[in-house]
Structures are given as C-alpha cells and as structure tokens.
C-alpha cells in the first residue's frame, strides 16, 4: 500500500506522505518525527471486520480484570497508546478519536482493530435503525434537544 497523497493545505499537520520534493519544505524541526500514515498501520488499510468501527461506534477501555488472560501482552505503538490515553476519561466515538489524534479515520480503524484483537477495548456499535425502539427513543432525542 502506498502512502496517502498530501491533499491538505500546508498549515495542516504534515504527517501525510509527500512525494514531491518541493512539498518537503513544509517540514521543519517542529514537525517532529514523521512516519507515513500507512507505515503506522504496516500497510494495512482495513480493519479485521468491515463496518465494525462505524464513525459513531463507541470505544471504551476494557477493564483490565476482564481481559482475556490467555492473550500475550501486546506490543503497542505510540499511536495505540495515544488512543488508550484518550479513552481513559470515558468512551469516545471513532470519529472523535480520529479528530483528537489528527489521524485519518481509516488509519484509526486499523489501530482500533489491533486494540480490539488484544482485548483492550470494548466496542459498542450503533443500533441499526430498523431495531431502534422507535418512538420512545426519538421522543427522548426531541426532549433532549429542547432542553439544551
């Protein structure tokens, strides 16, 4: 898998792969260490289960006591640790993790897949709309909005 092309404006974090030498001038000491995005994911572009990490799937840290003891201690990258740190104060949606880490959602999904494989996170997928407890939930949303 090739790295992503830099389509962002120069002021954005230059962690996307940049192929043209003339674009390398964005980088300076303050940019910190740089890794191509898909090097972080070792070239993987898809999570294990497609659709598992919806943009609004909620990610919560697993209680260490409940973790599968049979699994080996995982080797985690700094990005994995960043996600774990973010979720310490409470569950976050996949989209929020992407925003806070400034990583594209596609990369976040792969990293979350690793954390899930290591049994470190719980994932709550959004309720499929066909199964929603219709009126009651919708009324709750309406009342909640009115009360804002």
């Amino acid at each position, binding site marked *: 898998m090739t790295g992503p092309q830099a389509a962002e404006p120069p002021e954005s974090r230059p962690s996307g792969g940049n192929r043209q030498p003339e674009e390398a001038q964005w980088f300076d000491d303050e940019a910190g260490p740089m890794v191509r995005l898909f090097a972080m994911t070792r070239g993987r572009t898809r999570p294990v289960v497609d659709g598992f990490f919806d943009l609004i799937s909620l990610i919560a840290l697993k209680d260490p006591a409940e973790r599968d003891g049979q699994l080996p201690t995982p080797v985690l990258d700094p990005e994995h640790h960043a996600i774990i740190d973010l979720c310490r104060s409470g569950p976050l949606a996949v989209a929020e993790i992407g*925003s806070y880490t400034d990583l594209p959602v596609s990369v976040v999904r792969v990293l979350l897949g690793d954390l899930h494989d290591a049994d470190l996170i719980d994932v709550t997928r959004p309720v499929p709309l066909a199964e929603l407890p219709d009126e009651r939930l919708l009324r709750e949303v309406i009342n909640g909005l009115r009360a804002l």
Partner: protein
Amino acid sequence: MDSAHSDAASVHGQRSGIRGGPAVALKILVAGGFGAGKTTLVGAVSEIRPLRTEERLSELGRPLDDTAGVETKRTTTVAMDFGRIDLRPGLALYLFGTPGQDRFWFVWDELALGALGALVLADTRRLADCFPSVDFFEQRGIPFVVAVNCFEGTEVFAVEDVRGALDLDPGVPVVLCDARSREDGKGLLVRLVEHAAERRAARRG
C-alpha cells in the same frame, strides 16, 4: 461555554452508560452546497471538531477523479466537520457536515448508513447547489428537512417557492433559519427528528 460543561458531565455519564447498559449514539448529517452554512450550523449547536478520512481512489471510479497519469495517487484526503450533542448520559447525537465538493460523494454513502436523518441547507442565491443532496436523501429514503439559510441581505424566499423550485414531496418540511443561531439549529434538529418519527409511524401504520 455551556456545551463544555455538558460535555464533561456526560463523559462520565456515558461511561456508566456503556458499563452499566447500552449506550446509544445517533447521527444526523448536515448537507448542502459549498458555503451554504454547514460548518456554521454544526458549530452553532455543538462543539465543532475537524475530521479527516483517507479514501482509496482506485475503488471509486468517479469521473472527476481521473487517475490517468497520476499512478502514485491512490488515496485522497477528505475533510469534514462534526459535532457532538449530549442529550443525556448514554445518549449522544453526532452531527456530520458532509464534504461539500461533489467529487467526495462517495464519502456520503458511509456517512448516510444508519443516519437518523439529514438537514439540507439551502442558500437561496444558489438554490441549485442543494439539488444533489435532495436527490441523494430521496433516493435512499433518508428523512430530511430543507433549511433555508436566510443570509443577511438576501431576499427571504417564501417557503413554498423553495419547495416548488426544489420539487420536494409535500411531506418534506422546509424551514427558514439563520444557521448562526443556536436556537434555530436546535429547532431544525427537533423538526427533523419529529419528521423522522412521523415517517416511521406512517410506514408502520
């Protein structure tokens, strides 16, 4: 800012929601042409955050993304806005501002999956810009409300004029609004969820 307070309070509430029972996250899309006020509206009702996604061009086959001669360009970055509204502990509403450029339509399919509904922001100076959004939601049967953003200095169109120009089904609500107003934004969301509930009830009954 009161949204910051509610954010902090609900983070804890949500955790107990997840640990103690099901936590529910819902999404609503905010669509419309470029410059119609999507970002403004999301920001008016929630704390806004930027979000990036990388998409593989090779899977898209969109005519505008002709990759001939740029063999190295396999992915593209799509930027969008999103916001979160905490309705109660364990119940959060996420707003996603759909990418404005037409060539990013493919992102919409994923965004639209499981969406409660959509707000289509219309700018009366460029009403045609929201045709694609209206078509998109009509085709997928996703409930939507057309919000006519009344920019300063623009003539306030009659709701029926907009309905006629967009050739909307009679049931689709059309609401005049100021996208900068938090109250208007809340009102739009309420109207949308009411509309979704009505449609659900109608389909069921």
